[in-house]
């Protein structure tokens, strides 16, 4: 009885709500519940996944967002990165960090002149270590575990295996999230050749372990030879790789197979976390054509998979004054009438030198204007973009401390 009542109630309340902001005027930011800033987005989520092409400032953006969340939103915030750059560790005021989470010291915040409401923690993804941990968790017995860890192929494979970086990143995320230790986890994703690899990694891992192929390969070799269907493959593989090598692979995977049930179950759980309501994706890019193209592709993929696209962060954006048309004329005159203008300035220096400076300045403006306009066009041509779009201007120098990270954070926060 009561469920029916509840269901009946819901549609009744909805239209009433809708008329509220509609009649009160739409322009008001507080009038609707829409998330408009990164601050609002991060306040409502537990997992933020930062993704994009290589070299666009993904890691720095993730660290800046996490630092801002620790300062302004409070709670325990973790930034999980795959970037082995020492620079990030030192920017966060810690010596070095690895698979275990380290707390960013209050002193680092004090040096940046802020007192955080919460705590900022950092960890770096160590693929090999994470794989070893996984084996420890899923191996059915000690003997199998030791056999796997000692296998000569294991090292090679743990680094390459089915986009193992992508999978392991998601796996670690899942593990940390379910530990309930943090209010917010910001993850920086590994650079992938294809955005989809990353999104599909857990799914593919599950598929792999439940595949016929693995079962066939790990079947006793005699029965394998009998299978007619597999004969051509066996012949070919044997001729290319040599029997011994093939046997090594088979042995390794038959050991691995013992862990299959645990892996499959786990991969399913990890897949779920990507689609969870508490998870959001932040796509990072610059306005250059190649990274932006990749960002668009990623945004599309998120849509297809019904993952939540929370924000788009555009880094290294040139200032908007470069696009002013009125200034174009001014710059052109500085080029063409440089001598005349230099003369009006009088006492600056040799007129020829001053004229050359003025012409160079005008020329440089026009050069940068071309780039700024090109970038603006690129931005306008984005087919789909999320509610939150943050543009970060060029920073004068590299970010080397928490002050720098927070300065970047300020640009994207509100």
């Amino acid at each position, binding site marked *: 009885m009561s469920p029916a009542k509840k269901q009946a109630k819901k549609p009744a309340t909805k239209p009433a709500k809708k008329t509220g902001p509609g009649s009160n005027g739409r322009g008001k930011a507080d009038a609707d519940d829409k998330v408009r800033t990164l601050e609002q987005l991060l306040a409502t989520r537990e997992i933020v996944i930062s993704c994009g092409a*290589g*070299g*666009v400032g993904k890691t720095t953006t993730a660290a800046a967002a996490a630092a801002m969340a620790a300062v302004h939103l409070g709670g325990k915030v973790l930034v999980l990165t795959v970037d082995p*750059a020492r*620079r990030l560790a030192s920017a966060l005021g810690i010596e070095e960090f690895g698979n275990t989470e380290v707390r960013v010291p209050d002193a680092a915040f004090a040096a940046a002149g802020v007192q955080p409401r919460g705590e900022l923690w950092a960890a770096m993804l160590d693929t090999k270590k994470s794989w070893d941990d996984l084996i420890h968790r899923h191996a059915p017995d000690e003997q199998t575990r030791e056999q796997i860890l000692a296998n000569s*192929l294991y090292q*090679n*494979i743990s680094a*390459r*295996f*089915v986009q193992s970086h992508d999978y392991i990143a998601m796996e670690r995320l899942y593990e940390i999230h379910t530990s309930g230790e943090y209010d917010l986890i910001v993850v920086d994703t590994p*650079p992938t*050749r*294809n955005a989809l690899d990353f999104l599909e990694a857990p799914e593919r891992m599950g598929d792999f372990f439940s595949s016929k*192929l*693995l079962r066939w390969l790990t079947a006793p070799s005699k029965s394998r030879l009998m299978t007619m*269907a*597999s004969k*051509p*493959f066996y012949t*070919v*593989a*044997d*001729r*290319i*790789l*040599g*029997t011994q*090598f093939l046997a090594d*692979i088979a042995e390794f995977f038959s050991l691995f197979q013992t862990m299959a049930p645990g892996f499959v179950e786990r991969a399913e759980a990890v897949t779920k976390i990507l689609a969870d309501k508490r998870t959001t994706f932040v796509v990072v890019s610059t306005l250059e*054509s190649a990274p932006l*193209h990749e960002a668009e592709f990623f945004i599309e993929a998120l849509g297809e998979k019904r993952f939540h696209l929370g924000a788009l962060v555009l880094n290294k954006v040139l*200032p908007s*004054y*470069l696009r002013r048309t*009125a*200034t174009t004329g*001014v*710059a052109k005159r*500085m080029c063409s009438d440089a001598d*005349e*203008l230099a003369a009006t*300035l009088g006492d*600056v*220096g040799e007129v020829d*030198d001053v004229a*050359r*400076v*003025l012409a*160079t*300045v*005008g020329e*440089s*403006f026009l050069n*940068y204007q071309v*780039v700024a*306009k*090109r970038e603006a066009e690129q931005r306008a041509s984005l087919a789909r973009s999320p509610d939150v779009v943050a543009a970060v201007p*060029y920073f004068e120098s*590299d970010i080397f401390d928490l002050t720098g990270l927070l300065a970047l954070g300020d640009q994207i926060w509100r």
Partner: protein
Amino acid sequence: MTSLLDRKLLFVTGKGGVGKSTIAASIGLLAAEQGKKTLVCEVDAKGNLADFYEAGDTTFEPRELQPGLWAMSMNTEESLKEYLSLQLKIPLLARIGPLARTFDFIATAAPGVKEILTVGKLAWEVREKNYDLVVVDAVASGHIVGQLTAPQGINELVQVGMIRNQTQWMLDILNDPAQTGVVIVAAPEEMPVAETIELVERLQSETEVDVAAIVVNRVLPELFNEREEALFDKVRVPKRVAALNEAVGGDVGPVLDAAELAVTLRRSRAGHLARLRESVPSSLPLLYVPYLFTRSHGARATRQVAELLAEEL
């Protein structure tokens, strides 16, 4: 020291986002226009080499885009088929089905198989003298060492079998600096420079493959010399800005700001460039490609970069 375009096989690599493919495409174009029969091959599955020439999609089967310039994209499965029929004389076209299905697995499971099929195909083109120069838009700097050491790795891992017998001639080509070289593309920014320095060290310690050159892409121009900069600072004082505004009949503020920005951007990069020069062997040539202030990308940009590269060579 063999000049860049006189080699037979160039692997172009670099950190993501530095313009690796642009440089690879430009080197290919330049070589072709100098009369060399050139093959440009993209290895990455992303497949946008075509965008840099705007001459249609590329496939595993090389296609002549303009006289002397051929392009292809690597497909390790196709490479395996070709390899099997050419080298092992296995007539397997009829039963390729199970092979295709199992290929991904083998390629994943057996370390170096994909890499060796890639490197092997490219080295094969060199060995057969099908082209004067093969330019590879290779994997990014994080993976290139793995790709180049695959033949060596296979040699050690696989005890017997056809592939083992095949690796020696590949190594002979790869490890000969007169034939093969790596071109590292960098941008004058902190991370790309750090990664380039690290990669030079790794290539020298972990492989026998020669580093042919570092191409520093998108170098911003130096606006002023010292004296001019002093003059610029004088021009920026309010009364002179006012005088300029008056004379021009508009606001020169943004124009001056833009020059300031250009100087700052250039300066922050200069340090990284200096560090790069200091940190790699002085015998290693650094080629500088200026930032392109143009609205075009695609074929037009590839041509411009090729012309700029020609000046550096």
